[in-house]
């Protein structure tokens, strides 16, 4: 009788890459097969943008409001953030589902490294976010928005939306690992939504007052939205590009790291 077959340790970097890609593909396929769950994340921000553009066109004349042709240019970054926030926690809710139905155990009982298990899901969600961003930019352009920063600015928009998904997805994965409950993870969505509203996403902080202004100024979403908006409204600037990308990049490293640490902790608890 043959002894136990010990294959070559499939932990090489290349294999981890293939495994991550395979798991990312899995989450993309899942999104594609549940398109009805992706569509609201596109339709709702577009609808809100249409309504706001009609309502707030006169606000453009307020002293202190950035000089823009149309309110559409002003809220493009906000609409993208909103679209991304829908489904951004899907990396977490789907992980919670995998925990609930035992699929995660299947992954963990195989020789796959821990990193692809989490990052695969996040990568899938990030690709979906980039796709949604592209659709939103296209619709805005069709309706007359102008992106002063050109194609480079669009690339930054795509990258920022992907990075934000990693940030929110990382947090939601921490919650999924800690609670193992889809409901608990899903409950973070309103929080993200409110965080976007309490930033400069829909109105410049210079026109806010009191505590709200203070909250908005110290809201990391504002730190991302302001440089993004300058890229759209004013034009290309390396400083703005780095600022817009830097904040979510640093946060993503933190939250994805936290998710990996949470998984490691869960698995090694004696």
């Amino acid at each position, binding site marked *: *009788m*043959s*002894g*136990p*077959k*010990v*294959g*070559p*340790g*499939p*932990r090489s970097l290349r*294999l981890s890459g*293939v*495994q991550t890609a*395979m*798991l990312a593909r*899995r989450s993309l*396929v*899942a999104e594609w*097969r*549940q398109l009805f769950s992706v569509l609201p994340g596109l339709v709702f921000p577009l609808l809100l943008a249409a309504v706001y553009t009609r309502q707030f066109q006169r606000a453009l004349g307020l002293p202190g409001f950035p000089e823009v042709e149309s309110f559409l240019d002003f809220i493009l970054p906000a609409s993208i953030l909103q679209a991304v926030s829908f489904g951004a926690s899907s990396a977490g809710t789907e992980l919670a589902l*995998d925990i609930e*139905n*035992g*699929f995660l*155990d*299947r*992954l*963990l*009982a*195989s*020789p*796959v490294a821990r990193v692809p298990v989490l990052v695969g899901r996040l990568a899938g969600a990030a690709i979906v976010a980039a796709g949604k961003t592209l659709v939103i930019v296209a619709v805005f352009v069709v309706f007359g928005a102008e992106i002063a920063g050109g194609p480079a600015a669009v690339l930054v928009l795509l990258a920022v939306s992907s990075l934000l998904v990693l940030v929110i997805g990382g947090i939601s994965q921490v919650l999924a690992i800690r609670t193992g409950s889809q409901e608990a993870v899903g409950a973070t969505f309103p929080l993200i939504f409110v965080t976007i509203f309490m930033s400069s996403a829909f109105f410049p902080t210079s026109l806010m007052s009191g505590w709200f202004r203070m909250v908005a100024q110290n809201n990391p979403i504002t730190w991302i939205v302001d440089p993004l908006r300058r890229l759209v409204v004013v034009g290309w600037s390396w400083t703005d590009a780095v600022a817009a990308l830097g904040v979510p990049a640093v946060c993503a490293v933190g939250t994805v790291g936290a998710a990996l640490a949470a998984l490691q902790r869960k*698995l*090694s*608890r*004696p």
Partner: protein
Amino acid sequence: MESVIEARGLVRRFGDIVAVAGIDLDVTQGEVFGFLGPNGAGKSTAVRMFTTLLRPSGGTARVGGFDVVADAGAVRRIIGVALQDAAIDPLMTANELVRLQAVLHGISRADARSRGGELLARVGLSGAAKRRVSTYSGGMRRRLDLALSLIHEPSILFLDEPTTGLDPTSRLALWEEVGRLNSEHGTTVFLTTQYLEEADQLADRIAIIDGGRIVRQGSPSELKATVGAPTLRIDVGDGDDAAARNVLRRFGSQRPAREGRVAVGLEGGAAQLAEVIRALDQAGVGVAHFELDAPSLDDVFAEATGRRLEGDGVDE
């Protein structure tokens, strides 16, 4: 014989709850080992420790010669695992799941295709390979789960309650496949079950687990032999249980029985039956129904724990 699954004083606690309270066992290569016990006995917890999904709180466990904590990666490469409830993504097709599972085990695309096709054919799912798993019946899911756990030709297979909730036909099909794996491929199988018949049919050796402890261990025939006498179960209808018990006491030791029944291990064997009925008649105890059973694993369980496994409300 070489031991391929080994536990020494294996313990797992969840807070104050002791799920596995120090078990020792050895499973030799090529054996089908049955872990029999009711819900909550600690079967799944033990399997999760053997499959590296849960760290032991105490003691040691080795699988294929590797420590489940220190050499977890090596353990994962040689085991196949099909856990309770057939954890399968319902949005994916069988073909996609096979490919995913193959990549997880570092198997090349070409090998995955040929081996996956072969496995799906073996479990009778070739025709449904392109269908989403959400359209599968419970039996089909279990068979797919088994196929997935075999993609890397594991030498040791862990099956956690593989037939719970399945209809009799699907159960039989799965038993046949497990039997074939063991006899044709020499795969060592560690199987947990709450079904006596399953353990009896499939396992070369059985450990009965209750309350986190192994209470009996041996081959089905060895275990049954320890109980010895056949069990006589009497239903006295509306009659007097206590009077019946008084009579039966003279023929052997009392055994646990469902409510409204009295059971005794007939020390003199089946030959004593006529004598028992006469004695009951003389004592004025009416018998509504009686059964005489050769010792079963349920008797072994009852003798070890004071409870019956069957009729324990364990079915889904």
